[in-house]
């Protein structure tokens, strides 16, 4: 892996507030709600009045069990899913009204949203580089290929790659425009420990180099403990607790974030931290 170099902002990319003004949060969700219809004619609440902000430059984890609303939340932050009510601002821009002003400044990666299988890695990255309005496309693609150890695969169809290689290609696509806000949905899902560690290291370096804001949804507690300086714990579409990993451990009286996760997923403790591990264990 080579050291990444700064990349000029793509054409059309908007700029943020001048230094004298306190910048808006990187991400601000206000009373965000999403209801989905059910076959019976009712509705199910996937996300329920979610309000949170993510400061610029931080790495925030979105933790929760299956169906907690993490992917729905990320989809609404990206604007590919419209909220039933509530508001999303990214870098101070209202996503409902000016989404296209901020899209060049953000990006997204998920193992569940694929790149065209029959296109080669180089072709896929080239197409997206043009979509993001990059200049010097060939140079940027080559640069990212070297940084993410993809140079050997550039001319291979994306569909023929291993899971780890696909994840690196998806990450390369997500980093093409050097995003200020990077949303990652389970970035190391189904990867072997070595590849997952490699990805985490890369993300740490990327954040350190660019000061980017990263929001990642994950089921991997070790990953969250390692990467995140803030964690949003979700259950049934709501944020039930929030804090730095160390603060959450202390609040719940646990030694690992996994134990905290289980407490929250099984609704054994409250967000105030009134219940302790001992109380929770006793309740079992």
């Amino acid at each position, binding site marked *: 892996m080579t050291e990444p170099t700064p990349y000029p902002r793509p054409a059309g990319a908007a700029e943020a507030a001048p230094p004298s003004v306190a910048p808006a949060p990187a991400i601000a969700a206000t009373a965000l709600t999403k209801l989905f219809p059910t076959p019976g004619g009712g509705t199910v609440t996937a996300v329920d009045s979610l309000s949170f902000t993510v400061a610029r430059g931080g790495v925030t984890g979105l933790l929760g069990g299956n169906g907690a609303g993490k992917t729905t939340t990320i989809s609404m932050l990206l604007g590919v899913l419209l909220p039933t009510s509530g508001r999303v601002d990214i870098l101070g821009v209202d996503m409902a009204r000016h989404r296209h002003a901020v899209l*060049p400044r953000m990006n997204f990666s998920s193992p569940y949203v694929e790149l065209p299988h029959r296109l080669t890695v180089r*072709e896929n990255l080239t197409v997206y580089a043009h*979509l993001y309005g990059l200049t010097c496309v060939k140079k940027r693609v080559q640069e990212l290929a070297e940084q993410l150890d993809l140079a050997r695969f550039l001319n291979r169809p994306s569909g023929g790659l291993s899971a780890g290689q696909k994840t690196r290609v998806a990450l390369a696509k997500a980093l093409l425009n050097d995003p200020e806000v990077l949303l990652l949905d389970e970035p190391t899902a189904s990867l072997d420990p070595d590849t997952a560690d490699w990805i985490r290291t890369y993300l740490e370096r990327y954040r350190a180099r660019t000061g980017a804001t990263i929001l990642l949804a994950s089921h991997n507690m070790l990953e969250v403990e390692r990467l995140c300086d803030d964690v949003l714990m979700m259950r049934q579409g709501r944020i039930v607790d929030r804090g730095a990993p160390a603060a959450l451990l202390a609040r719940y009286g646990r030694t690992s974030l996994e134990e905290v996760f289980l407490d929250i997923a099984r609704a054994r403790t409250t967000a105030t931290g009134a219940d302790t591990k001992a109380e929770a264990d006793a309740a079992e």
Partner: protein
Amino acid sequence: MPHDAIPQSGIHPAADFSLRRVGAMVLRYWYLLRGSWPRILELAYWPTMQMILWGYINQFMASSSGWVAQGAGVLVSAVLLWDVLFRGQLGVSVSFLEEMWSRNLGHLFVSPLRPTEWIASLMVMSLLRTLIGVLPAAALAIPFFGYSVFGLGFPLIAFFANLIVMGWSLGLLIVALILRYGMGAEGLAWIVVFMLAPVSAVYYPVTVLPGWLQTVAWGLPSSHVFEGMRGLLYGGTLRWDHLAWATGLNALYMVLSVGVFLYGFHRARVRGALLQTGE
């Protein structure tokens, strides 16, 4: 360099409509097409087979039917122009389906790509696919049957333009239906256009149809194009009235189909279908 260190000066929205992003999407579909020679061959295969089949029917009918004999190459012209409509529609629908099959919509629409730019790229690809499909068949008709559809001259361009635009409108409506009903509606891409074939009066005059169906036929740009084509082959003059009707109806249908597509796209964002679609 940290992002906060970049000089900042307020929000400047990205261009409303970017030809570069249209070009990026055309490049994406072109990469797909050029990467598979069977796909390119397939584009030209059916129009050529149809042309050969209808060419021999035309030859046979010319010897036994005065109507066919008087209009030199009327059936060959009809089949080639019908393929413009069919390939035009298929070009839009199949390029869209490529995104569904590859589950790529989620990535595309978190990028700055706008739906209108995507529509434009689908139309450009439809034009390319139609030219690749129909031009070889039209060229082969010359040595096979001694008939050149290019002999229609300038009106051919007008017929071609009207039929491909009608194909785009139809393609966008089908895309909207697939966005609404998912991949279960995928088959519509290959069958819907054939519902219009009987009332488009491709191989016979509109007057052959029963009265009530003639009313339906005159509401289709394709019927006016095929009547115009026959007018040219039989009378030697271009029927401007048919051309005007075809163009006016196409303008109306294009506005409606773009509106339906954009509404379908909006509803897909409401339902979360952009991230969930796929095989």
